[in-house]
C-alpha cells in the first residue's frame, strides 16, 4: 500500500439512555465530528455507516432513516449491517481505492428504543432448529462460559475480576453507561441471570451514536497535527449452528492474524500498547486475550490475575471500561476504535494510560459466542 489512511476526528454520544429524537442525535454527532475535523459537509467524500434493522427502533432498511441526518444528502455512501468495524474498514477501502479523499464513518444504535438485546439476538436463529429451542446470545454465552470453566479451569473469581476491573475503569470514562464501583463480593452477590452468568457479568443495553472522519495521508496531515493511522485489519466468521462449533476454538485467532500480518506485528503482547476488546460477557475478555495471543490458551485467567491487563499492566485491556460498561450493540466496535484513537492521541482524559501509547488494538464481535470477529490496529 502506497497510501495511508488516517483517522482525523471522532465524536460520540455517551451510553446512557436518552429521550432525544434519533435523527437529532445522528445530526448532532455528524456535525460535531465534521466541525472538529474542519471538513465541510460539501467536502465529505463518502459516508459509510453501520446499523442493523432489528437494533434500530423498529425501522427496516436502517440507513434510509438517517441517510441525510448523517451528512449523506446527495453523497455516495453505503451501509454495513451488524458490525461497525465493517463500516470502518469499508471506508478505508474506499479511500485506498483512490476514489475518495475523505470518508465519514457512522455507527448507529439507539438502544433505548429497542427491546432487550436477548429479544433481538433471538432473531439470529434459524426458524427450524435453534429458534424452536429458544436460543439467544446470552444463552450461547452461558454455554460458552461453562465450557471455558470446565475445560480450562477458569474460575468464577477470575470472571468477576474482569467485571471489577472494567467497571472501575469506566468510572473515569465520561461516555460509559454503567458507572458504579463494584467489589468481587458485589459481583458474587449479583443475581443469576443465565447460570453460570450473573447479571453484572452481562453488558447493558446502551445508546451509541458515533462518527469518525477518515482521510487519505496528505489530507489527514493537513487536517490534524495528530492523525492516527490505520495499520491493519482482519475479520473472520465461524459456522452457524452452535453445536457445530468448538466454542473455545473460534475464529478470533484468524481475524487477529490477518490484522497482525497487515500491521507487521509479530509479538502482539509486546507491540500493542492498549487493547479495547468487545466483552459483552465478562469471561469473554479473558478468552479473547488468549485468542489475540496476549497469553497462552487457557491462561486468560492468570493473565488477568497478574495485573497485566490492568491500566498499569504491560497490556492494558479496556481502560475505557469496555462493553461491560457500555454496549450499543452495533456501534460498539467503533467505540472500541475511538477509545484506541483517543489513547494514541493522548486525549483519553482520566482514562489516559500513564505509558506512551503508539499502537492500539480494537476488537469487536457479534453473533452467538463470538461467531464473527473483527480486529483493527491503529497507531501513531
Amino acid at each position, binding site marked *: *500500500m502506497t497510501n495511508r489512511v488516517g483517522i482525523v476526528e471522532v465524536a460520540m454520544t455517551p451510553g446512557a439512555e436518552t429521550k432525544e429524537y434519533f*435523527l437529532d442525535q445522528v445530526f448532532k454527532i455528524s456535525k460535531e465530528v465534521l466541525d472538529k475535523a474542519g471538513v465541510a459537509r460539501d467536502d465529505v467524500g463518502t459516508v459509510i455507516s453501520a446499523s*442493523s*434493522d*432489528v437494533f434500530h427502533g*423498529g*425501522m*427496516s*432498511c*436502517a*440507513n*434510509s*432513516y*438517517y*441517510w*441525510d441526518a448523517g451528512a*449523506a*444528502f*446527495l*453523497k*455516495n*455512501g*453505503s*451501509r*454495513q*449491517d*451488524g*458490525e461497525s468495524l*465493517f463500516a470502518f*474498514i*469499508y471506508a478505508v*477501502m*474506499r479511500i*485506498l*481505492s*483512490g*476514489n475518495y479523499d475523505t470518508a465519514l464513518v457512522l455507527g448507529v444504535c439507539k438502544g433505548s428504543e429497542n427491546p432487550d438485546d436477548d429479544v*433481538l*439476538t433471538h*432473531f*439470529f*436463529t*434459524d*426458524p427450524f432448529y435453534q429458534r424452536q429451542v429458544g436460543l439467544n446470545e446470552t444463552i450461547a454465552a452461558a454455554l460458552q462460559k461453562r465450557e471455558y470453566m470446565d475445560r480450562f479451569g477458569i474460575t468464577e473469581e477470575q470472571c468477576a475480576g474482569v467485571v471489577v476491573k472494567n467497571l472501575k475503569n469506566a468510572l473515569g470514562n465520561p461516555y460509559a453507561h454503567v458507572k458504579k464501583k463494584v467489589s468481587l463480593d458485589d459481583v458474587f452477590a449479583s443475581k443469576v441471570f443465565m447460570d453460570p452468568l450473573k447479571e453484572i457479568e452481562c453488558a447493558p443495553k446502551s445508546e451509541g451514536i458515533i462518527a469518525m472522519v477518515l482521510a487519505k495521508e496528505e489530507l489527514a496531515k493537513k487536517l490534524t497535527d495528530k492523525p492516527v493511522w490505520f495499520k491493519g*485489519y*482482519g*475479520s*473472520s*466468521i*465461524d*459456522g*452457524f449452528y452452535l453445536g457445530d462449533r468448538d466454542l473455545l476454538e473460534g*475464529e478470533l485467532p*484468524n481475524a487477529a492474524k*490477518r490484522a497482525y500480518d497487515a500491521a507487521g506485528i509479530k509479538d502482539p503482547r509486546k507491540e500493542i500498547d492498549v487493547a479495547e476488546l468487545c466483552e459483552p460477557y465478562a469471561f469473554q475478555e479473558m478468552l479473547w486475550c488468549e485468542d489475540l495471543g496476549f497469553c497462552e490458551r487457557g491462561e486468560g485467567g492468570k493473565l488477568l490475575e497478574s495485573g497485566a491487563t490492568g491500566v498499569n499492566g504491560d497490556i492494558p485491556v479496556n481502560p475505557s471500561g469496555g462493553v461491560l460498561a457500555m454496549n450499543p450493540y452495533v456501534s460498539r466496535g467503533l467505540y472500541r476504535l475511538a477509545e484506541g484513537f483517543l489513547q494514541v492521541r493522548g486525549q483519553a482524559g482520566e482514562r489516559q494510560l500513564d505509558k506512551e501509547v503508539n499502537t492500539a488494538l480494537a476488537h469487536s464481535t*457479534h*453473533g*452467538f459466542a463470538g*461467531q*464473527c470477529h473483527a480486529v483493527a490496529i491503529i497507531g501513531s
Partner: protein
Amino acid sequence: MGRPVAIIGSGQTHHGRRFDVTYPELIKEAVDAVFENTGISPDDIEGVVSGTMPSMMEGVALTHFYFAEVLRSVGKPIMKTETCGSTGISLAFTGYYWVASGMADLVLVVGSEKMNEGDSQATMTTVLEPFYQRSFIAGAPGVFSMQSQEWSVKFGIPEEKVRAAATRLSVDHHNDAFDNPYAHIKKKLTEDEVNNARIITYPVRLWDVCPNSDGACAMIFASEEMAKKLGLTPAWVRGVGYSGEEYWFGDSEKAIWQCAIDAAKQAYGMAGITNPRKDLDVAEVYNPFTFQELLYYECFGFCDFGQACDLTLKGVFSRDGELPCDPSGGTLCTNPIGATGLNRVAEAALQVTGQAGDHQIPGAKLSLAHAMGGVDQYNGVMILGSEK
C-alpha cells in the same frame, strides 16, 4: 481511480416461489454455480460480501450468521452490505472497492432474498417511521404511483401515451424473459391484457409491477493480475456511482430525480461516457415498475426529459433498438430484492463478455447496471466494459 477490477463470473439461481429449499440451500445454488462456472476453488476466495434487503423480511436478523457455511465464508473475512432495494448493487460496489483498495485479489459477492417467506409490503411499511410517513405510504406501489404521476404531469405527457409506453415495456420484458433461463415470470402478454389488468394503485396495474421472487446471485470480483492468472474473460468495472437523498419523501423532487442523475453522472465520469445512448450498448435498468423505467431513461441521459415515452414507442430501447434496455426481462420479471441489483450487474457482465446466451445483444462492449432503494431514495449505477 484505483487499480482495475474485473468481474470474472457469476451464478444465479432459478427464481420463483422456491418453497422446495430452505433459505441457505437457495443461496448454495448460486454460490455453487459461480464456482462451477469459473472453475475457481472456494479456498482461493479472500473475502466474502453478503447482503439481503431488510433482514426482517424473512424474520432472520444479521443473516450472514445463518448463511456462513453456504457463503463459503467460514474462516474468511466477511462484510455485510445492506442498502434497502439497492442492496444488490451496493454489494457489487463493496466487492469492487475491496479489490480496488488492494486488500484482496479475489472476492465473492452474494445477494439473496426469499421474499415469499415474508410479506414484502408489510416489510416496506416498516421502512417508514411511525411518527409521520408510515400512515400515508402504501407500500412500494404507492410511492411509485406518486412519482410517476409527478413526472408525467410535470412534463405534460398525456396519460394515454404514458400508458402506451408502459404497456410496450411490459409486453416486451415479459417476452424477453423467455430467453433468460433464470427469470421468474415469463409470459406472452397482449397490449389489451396489460391495459386492462387489475389496478394496484392507479396508474400502476398488475403487469406494471415486479413479482415477489425467491433467488440468489453470486459473483466473483478479481484484480487484474488474478483475472489474467485465472484466464477467465473479464467484465471490467469502468465506473461506479451512487447517490442518496432525504428520508422524508416530500423533501426532494422525484420527477427530475437528482440522486438518479448524480449516480449516473459519477459512473459516466469514471468511464468517460459523454453520450450514454450512443456509448452504451446495453443497459440493465432496475425496473420494478414500468413507469419508473421510463423515468430512468431520462435521468440517465438516454434521452431528454419528457421524451422517454415517444422513444420507447419507437423501439429505441427494445432488444433490437439503439440502446436495448433490460433484455433479461429485468426486475419487472424477476425480483428477489437483495439479489436484484446484483442480478443487474451479473446480466450486464454477461453481455459484455458475450455470455448472455439467448438474450445476448450482439457485440455488446459497454453496459450499464443499476439499482434503486429506500423510499425512492437511492440510486446506484455501475458501468462494465469488455475492455479496461
